C-alpha cells in the first residue's frame, strides 16, 4: 500500500479561505478569524475552530461546511476541535474581511467600542472619543446612532444614519 500524499497546510488554509460564513456569506471563515489552527495528526487533519458567540446557531453549520469542503477536496480523516480560550474577538477579523463587510452593507467593528458592562463609564468614554463614530456603510456619514445593541444575528447591532436615513447593521465589537 502506498501512503497517499497529504496536502500541505497552506493548501488546506487556502481551501478554507473560500468557505463562506453561513449567515454573512460575503466573508469567509478565515476572514472571520475563527479557524484557530490547522494541523496533521498522522493522517488525520485537525481543524481547531472557536465559536463567535456561545449560542450562535451558525456554529454547527460552520463545522458541517468545513467538513464538507475538506471532504470534497479529498481529505478523508478530519477532526474538528472546539477551542474556547482565548475567546474570539472581532479584532481577529481580517482587514480584507472588514472591507467585504462594508461593501456588503454591514459597518465593520471599530476597536474600542466593545461593551465593558459599565454603562455610565462607557458612555463617558464614547462621548470623549469622536474617532469611535460608526460610519454608515451606505453613504459614509458618521452622523449615526445606535438603535439597539442587538441585531439580526448575535454578532450585530442595529444602527441608523441621520444623513441617508437608512437603518444598517453594525458588526459589534466583542
Amino acid at each position, binding site marked *: 500500500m502506498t501512503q497517499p500524499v497529504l496536502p500541505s497546510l497552506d493548501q488546506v488554509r487556502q481551501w478554507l479561505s473560500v468557505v463562506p460564513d453561513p449567515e454573512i456569506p460575503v466573508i469567509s471563515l478565515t476572514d472571520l478569524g475563527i479557524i484557530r489552527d490547522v494541523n496533521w495528526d498522522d493522517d488525520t487533519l485537525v481543524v481547531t475552530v472557536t*465559536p463567535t*458567540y*456561545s*449560542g*450562535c*446557531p451558525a456554529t454547527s453549520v460552520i463545522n458541517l461546511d468545513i467538513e464538507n469542503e475538506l471532504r470534497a477536496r479529498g481529505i478523508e480523516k478530519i477532526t474538528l476541535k472546539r477551542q*474556547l*480560550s*482565548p*475567546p*474570539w*474577538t472581532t479584532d481577529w477579523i481580517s482587514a480584507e474581511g472588514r472591507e467585504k463587510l462594508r461593501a456588503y452593507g454591514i459597518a465593520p467593528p471599530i476597536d474600542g467600542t*466593545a*461593551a*465593558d*458592562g*459599565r*454603562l*455610565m463609564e*462607557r458612555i463617558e468614554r464614547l462621548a470623549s472619543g469622536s474617532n469611535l463614530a460608526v460610519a454608515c456603510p451606505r453613504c459614509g456619514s458618521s452622523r449615526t446612532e445606535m*438603535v*439597539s*445593541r*442587538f*441585531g*439580526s444575528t*448575535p454578532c450585530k447591532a*442595529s444602527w441608523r444614519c441621520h444623513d441617508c436615513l437608512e437603518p444598517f447593521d453594525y458588526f*459589534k465589537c*466583542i
Partner: protein
Amino acid sequence: MATAATPSVNDALVEFLLRTGDNTLILGHRISEWCGHSPVLEEDIALANSALDLIGQTQLWLGLAGEIEGKGRTADNLAYLRDAAEFRNALLVERPNGDFGFTLMRQFLFDAWHFELLTALTQSKDPRIAEIAAKSLKEVSYHIERSADLIVRLGDGTAESHKRMQDALDQLWSYTGELFIGDAYDDVLAEAGIAPHPASLKDKWLAVVSRTLSEATLKIPSSTFMHKGGKRGIHTEHLGFILAEMQFLQRAYPGATW
C-alpha cells in the same frame, strides 16, 4: 443533628456548575417566551438574542457539569431529563415574565449579578471554568449595558413607566438575597480558589444596582425579607410549568434527535 461532612471539591464543582447552568437555562427559557410578543421589534430581537447567549452558555456550563460528574450525562440530558427538585437555579430567574418592565427589572438585577460572578470566575484556578467565564463575560457585558440603559429610560420616563418599574422592583427585590447566600459547597470552592464566595459579590452588585436605580429615580424597598431555596432545589410552582413546556419533547419522545 449530625454535622454534614465537608463536600469534596469534585462534588462542589458539579453542584456549582449545575447552579450556574440552571440559572442561564431557566432565564434563557423565560426570556425566549417573549419572542414574537415584545412591544417593539428591536426589543424582541434583543430579548431573543440574550436568550440565545444564555442558552449557549448553558451548554458550556452543563456540558462541563456532566463531564466532571462522570456519569455520561450530556448538557441535553441535564436540561431535559431532570425534575424540578433537581434544578439548582435561583428563584429570581423562574419568576413569570409579567409585563415588559417586570421582565427588564428581573433581567437587570440578574445581569448585574451575572456580570460580577463571571468577572470573578475569569480568575478561577480551574482553567475550564475561567475560559467559559471569559467567553460568557463578553456577551453578558452587552446584556447589562442594555438592561441598565432601559431601567433608567423607563424608571425616569413617564408616570406610567415609572410606576411599573417601581412595582417590578418592589416585587422582585426579595428574590435577590438568595444570590449572595453561600453554603458548604460554596465554602469549598472559595477555599480552593475555584469560584468566589457568593457573599463576596454583594457589595459590587449593590453599588452598580444602587447607582442605576437612583439614576432611574427608583427606590430600593426597605424590607429586608428574602426568599430562598432555589439553590437547594426548593422551587416555586412556576418552575414546574417551565419544565413541562421545555422538556415535553424529550419526555414524550425519549432520545428524539433532529
